[in-house]
C-alpha cells in the first residue's frame, strides 16, 4: 500500500471553496432568516469543516480505522450536546 498524494490543484480548489463559504456565511448573517440564521451558519461551517477533514487532513485517503476515530469524535460530541441540551430545554 503506497500513500496517496493529493494534488495541489485539489488543495487550491478546497481553499477557494472555503473562502467562498466564508463569504457566504458573512452574507447570510446580514439577512434575516428568523430562527434559520443559526442553522444556515452552522450548516456552512460544518460543510467547510468537512472539506478540511476530507482533503486537507487526508481523511478521504486514510485507513478505515482513522475513519472510525473521526466518526467516534463526532459521536461523543453529539452525546454531550444532545443529552445536555435536552435536559436544559425541558426544565
Amino acid at each position: 500500500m503506497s500513500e496517496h498524494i493529493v494534488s495541489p490543484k485539489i488543495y487550491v480548489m478546497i481553499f477557494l471553496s472555503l473562502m467562498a463559504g466564508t463569504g457566504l456565511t458573512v452574507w447570510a448573517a446580514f439577512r434575516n432568516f428568523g430562527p434559520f440564521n443559526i442553522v444556515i451558519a452552522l450548516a456552512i461551517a460544518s460543510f467547510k469543516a468537512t472539506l478540511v477533514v476530507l482533503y486537507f487532513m487526508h481523511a478521504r485517503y486514510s485507513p478505515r480505522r482513522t475513519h472510525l476515530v473521526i466518526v467516534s469524535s463526532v459521536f461523543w460530541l453529539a452525546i454531550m450536546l444532545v443529552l445536555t441540551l435536552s435536559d436544559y430545554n425541558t426544565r
Partner: protein
Amino acid sequence: MHRTGELYGHFQTLEQQKESAALGMWVFLVTEVLFFGGLFMTYTINRQAFSTAFGVGSNTLDIELGGFNTAFLIMSSLTMAMAVWSAQVGKKQLVSIFLIATLALGTVFLGIKVIEYKQKFDHHLIPGHDFDVMYRTAHPTAADKPSDMAVEKEELEKAFAKDPDLNAHAQLYFSLYFGMTGLHALHMIVGAGLLIWLIKGSFKGRFTPQYNTPVEIVGLYWHFVDIVWIYLFPLLYLIDRHR
C-alpha cells in the same frame, strides 16, 4: 531505542510507522474536539438564556478584522497542506518556503487578535469591575463616527429595556469570547512553536518522500485549529447582524 535511519525498531516499515503516528494524532484530536466541545456547549446554553446580551456583545466585534483573520487562517491551512505535498514529492526547498508562509500567516492572525483584544480593553469590555457596555457610546473618541454611536446607543437602550441585567449578561458573553478565542490562540501559539521546529528540520533537508511524518502530523493539528475557528467566527462575530 533501536533505530535505522528514521525507522524505529518496533515498526516494520516507515509506512506503518506513519500510519500509527497519524492515528495517534487523530485520537489526540478527538480529545481536543471534546475539550472545545465543552466550551461550545456552555456557549449554547448561555446564549439561549441571554440572547439579547449575546447579540449586543457579538455586535461590538469588528467583522472586518474577524473576516480577514478567517481568510488568513484558511490560507495558512492551504500553505500547510502544500508543505505536506512538497515533502511527499521531494521538493525540499518548497517544504521550507511553505512552512515559513504558514508560520507568517499564523503570526498575522495572532497580531490581529492582539489589536482586537486591545480594542476591548479600550472600550471597557473586559469582564470584571470596570465592565460597562455603554462605555464606548458614553466616551466616543475622534475615530468614532457620531452617527454610528447614535445608532449603537439606541440599540443598547432597546437591549436594556429587554434585559435590565444586560451589563451582567454581556460579561458572560465576553468571558466566553475571551475564553474560547484565548484557548484557540494558545493552540495557535503551540502550533507556531511546532512550525519553527519543522522549519529547522526542513533546513537540514530532513523531510523526504520516504519520511515526512512530522510535517503530516503537525499539519493535522494545524488544520484542526483552523476548523475550531471556522465554527468560532460565525458563532462569536455573526450571531446578531441581521437587525
